[in-house]
């Protein structure tokens, strides 16, 4: 059993930010370093966030941000080629995990404390002196081309999400898959990655952190290595408003898989810094929290009717790094083709009821209690605490457990329901279906016909049958609907 050097409840571990929050005022200032109280454990956690996500892809170079990020870890760095980097990481027992998102790129490494010097060098090499060796960049590029073309076709749920974002942000930098589009990707080369790195990975755009059993020497070593990042100003990227969603439209993507799944929603203005965030967080959790069974959607579609495996709602994509352009979205996991129309109608009716009637006091209190009590679980170890602290610094929002609990505590029934009325627009919905019978789905939903649920051996009681009949007879009121084949969506 180990002891703590610093007695520090998970809740109370306020990060120590050494060089001030983003935005930095001087490009030549040292890279901002954030530390959590050191422990006497056996692991040091290193992490960085870089404002170099796919929203910064130049037109015609879609995918360069993600390719550059992946190449940091897997195309050589410093004195080592890619194989030597892999061998060095392997021997230390660690991995450099890189995640590229819309606005940010994250790098994470867990390191045995005894090997911290070697880890800091590997981490800093990746950030500061990546080599972008040609064969490795080409391999990573080919891998990305496969992922956004053929690979997506074998994962209809990922395809639905990607297509939804593509339509929702059409003509906007968020409209491209983070990994890029097939045609632009295929033309990228190592020099493109070098140029992107040279302009985007500068002191001003990088935020690093240490947690776990870090030492002052390790921190100094990391900071010294990062002094080699350029002092150039980080290029400004104008924040463009996403296109508005007006009316209800449905894209049916035709696949060979005999299932139908949906993603639907619209942009909202509520990010973490918005005063209505906590109210919308509570409301959306009540509608359907990721992988939890208590939400309204889950109960209506899965628990009560066995239509599919799960149904959830979000105001920020699950697991995403901070993003400038939040959206409200619902995820209806694959149902049978025959029940696809009914599932969408039921989901839309639940959305309408939620948006118009809001929550009641009991639902509000139960949801608030769960969110408030589970906050410490999400930061239960130094790795998660560091990731959260970096997100907070990157977004300029206090994400400590205490601050989030305080925000949740201030939510009232009227503030939740007012936020719903303000931000959720059930009449303006973009919907994407991925279906083995997309044409039939669109036809069923545009013909204003009954689309009864087909149960497997279940005979609902009279009340349930009556409720189902209401759903079956309802009209999604599509203003526009069309289909397209899955092949080539992001070619």
């Amino acid at each position, binding site marked *: *059993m*180990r002891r*703590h050097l610093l007695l*520090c409840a*998970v*809740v109370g571990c306020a990060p120590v930010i050494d060089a001030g929050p983003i935005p930095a005022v001087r490009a030549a200032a040292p890279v901002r370093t954030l530390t959590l109280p050191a*422990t006497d*454990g*056996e*692991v040091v956690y290193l992490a960085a966030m870089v404002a170099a996500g796919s929203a910064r892809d130049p037109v015609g170079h879609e995918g360069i941000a993600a390719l550059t990020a992946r190449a940091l870890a897997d195309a050589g760095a410093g004195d080592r080629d*890619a*194989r030597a980097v*892999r*061998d060095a*990481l*392997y021997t*230390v*027992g660690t991995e450099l995990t890189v995640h590229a998102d819309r606005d940010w790129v994250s790098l994470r490494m*867990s*390191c*045995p404390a005894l*090997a911290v010097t070697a880890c800091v060098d590997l981490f800093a090499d990746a950030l500061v002196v990546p080599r972008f060796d040609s*064969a*490795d960049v080409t391999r990573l590029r080919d*891998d990305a081309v*496969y992922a956004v073309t*053929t*690979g997506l*076709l*074998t994962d209809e*749920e990922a395809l639905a999400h990607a297509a939804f974002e593509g339509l929702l942000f059409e003509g906007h930098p968020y409209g491209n898959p983070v990994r890029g589009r097939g045609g632009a990707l295929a033309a990228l080369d190592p020099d493109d990655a070098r140029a992107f790195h040279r302009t985007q990975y500068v002191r001003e755009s990088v935020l690093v952190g240490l947690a776990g059993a870090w030492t002052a020497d390790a921190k100094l070593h990391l900071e010294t290595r990062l002094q080699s990042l350029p002092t150039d100003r980080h290029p400004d990227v104008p924040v463009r408003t996403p296109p508005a969603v007006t009316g209800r439209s449905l894209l049916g993507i035709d696949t060979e*898989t005999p*299932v139908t799944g949906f993603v639907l929603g619209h942009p909202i203005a509520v990010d973490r810094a918005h005063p209505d965030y906590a109210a919308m967080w509570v409301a959306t959790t009540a509608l359907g929290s990721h992988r*939890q069974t*208590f939400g309204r959607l889950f109960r209506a579609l*899965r628990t009560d*009717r*066995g*239509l*599919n*495996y799960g149904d959830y709602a979000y105001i920020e994509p699950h697991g995403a790094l901070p993003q400038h352009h939040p959206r409200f979205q619902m995820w209806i*996991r*694959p*149902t*049978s083709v025959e029940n696809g129309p009914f599932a969408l109608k039921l989901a839309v009716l639940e959305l309408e009821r939620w948006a118009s009637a809001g929550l009641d006091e009991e639902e509000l209190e*139960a949801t608030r209690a*769960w969110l*408030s*009590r*589970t906050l*410490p*679980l999400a930061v*239960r*170890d130094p*790795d998660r605490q560091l990731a959260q602290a970096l997100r907070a610094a990157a977004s300029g929002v206090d994400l400590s457990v205490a601050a989030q609990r305080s925000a949740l505590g201030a939510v009232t029934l009227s503030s939740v329901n007012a936020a719903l009325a303000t931000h959720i627009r059930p009449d303006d919905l973009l919907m994407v279906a991925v279906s083995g019978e997309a044409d039939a789905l669109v036809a069923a939903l545009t013909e204003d016909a009954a689309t009864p649920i087909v*149960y*497997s*051996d*279940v005979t609902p009681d009279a009340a349930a049958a009556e409720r189902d009949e209401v759903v079956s007879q309802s009209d999604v009121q599509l203003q526009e609907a069309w289909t397209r084949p899955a*092949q080539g969506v992001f070619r």
Partner: protein
Amino acid sequence: MHELLAAAVLWLPLSATAAVPQATSTTLDNGLHLVIIPMSHTDGVVAWQLRMDVGSGDEVQTGRTGFAHFFEHLLFHGSQATPRAARERALLALGVEENAWTWFDQTVYHAVVPADSLADYAALEADRLSGLHLTADIVRREAGAVYGEYRKGQADPMTVLLDRAYETAFTTHPYGHSTLGLLADIEAMPDGLDTALAFHDLYYRPERATLLLAGDVDPASATALIEDRLGAWEPGTDKPPRVPVEPRQRAARRVEVAWPTATAPLLSLSWKIPAHHPDAFADNAALSLAGMLLTGATGSLTQRLVHDDKHAYAVLGWSGSLRDPGLMNVIVRLREDADVTAVEAIVREEVAALGEAVDPARLAAAQARVAAMQALGSDDPVLVADAHGDALFPGTDLDTNAARNALLDAHTGAVDVPAAVRTHLIEAHLTVGVLRQAP
């Protein structure tokens, strides 16, 4: 409620060493095995894992494949006293995040629990374990959710290829069918109330359960708490049916899958390997290291197929530690223009080379990585509970696992990787699977 294979993609099923926090082990009077791992820096958080000793590898009844996993879903419907909706309200108030998964040998109910909710959560668990209440209607509706899960899996070429490879490799043992079950049996699940009740009565007994608690727990008070909450869970009286032994495989087998849409070809090579058992620990450890030396970031196959010859996008490997003899799998996601036959030959070459000799430096690196990886999971109570839970099987305990892990250690280990490869990774034990787009 299903995370099939999610934790099985590494070659590191062998865990729980001195590097991770110290565990204590107790068996209650009713047979429940309790493992407690206190972690001083996890203030207010406890990882809960209830591991039931039943999975799809126990499904011997004709027409009821997939039932262990289906039952996992059904347990979430609660008891007569606390049915599903009331249980969900209780979980909201307690601030618990829970889920479950099923695989060949186990069904695992896991949760992250605020420490001050542990007593109430234990009571909720005891309530559903002893007093599960099912109706025909509940069973019928839940069957729809399982069907949805099956449909999703069938859209994934890797899932389909491995299902077919296991079907081909196992002619008798229930490892031959997937944990989700055969389609015809999934379609029959709506009628499964009687089977579900009998399944609960037979398998959901304390002597078939291991409860792991990791994090902010005091062993003495937590043991008393679990005795109080789960001590009344009644042991079973009937023995489960015997699981048939897979006949010895004497020749290589092959299965081909034609995929209806565009996909990169997939190649799997799967060899029969010994069960996870103290009698086979030397081979278990050697084959784990063999897997690391072949696949993963620095494996010889990864280097050759992905980096040198550019035949493949990725090389994956996994085996899992199983109660009965299972498979060690190497899976290659080929580039579209790669020659499947040539790649298959390269895999055989690299395996044969490992059977002749192992580079001492690479073996030492693999052993060092095992030690480092064990340390790296030591701060998260969920990973600590996973590590201990994955290592505990019938016939093993904390002491035997410590002895097994010593075999992996660079300083104390005396594993003979080439000998294990020559003995087990041979043609007579091999099943080859190929999936490619239909012409």
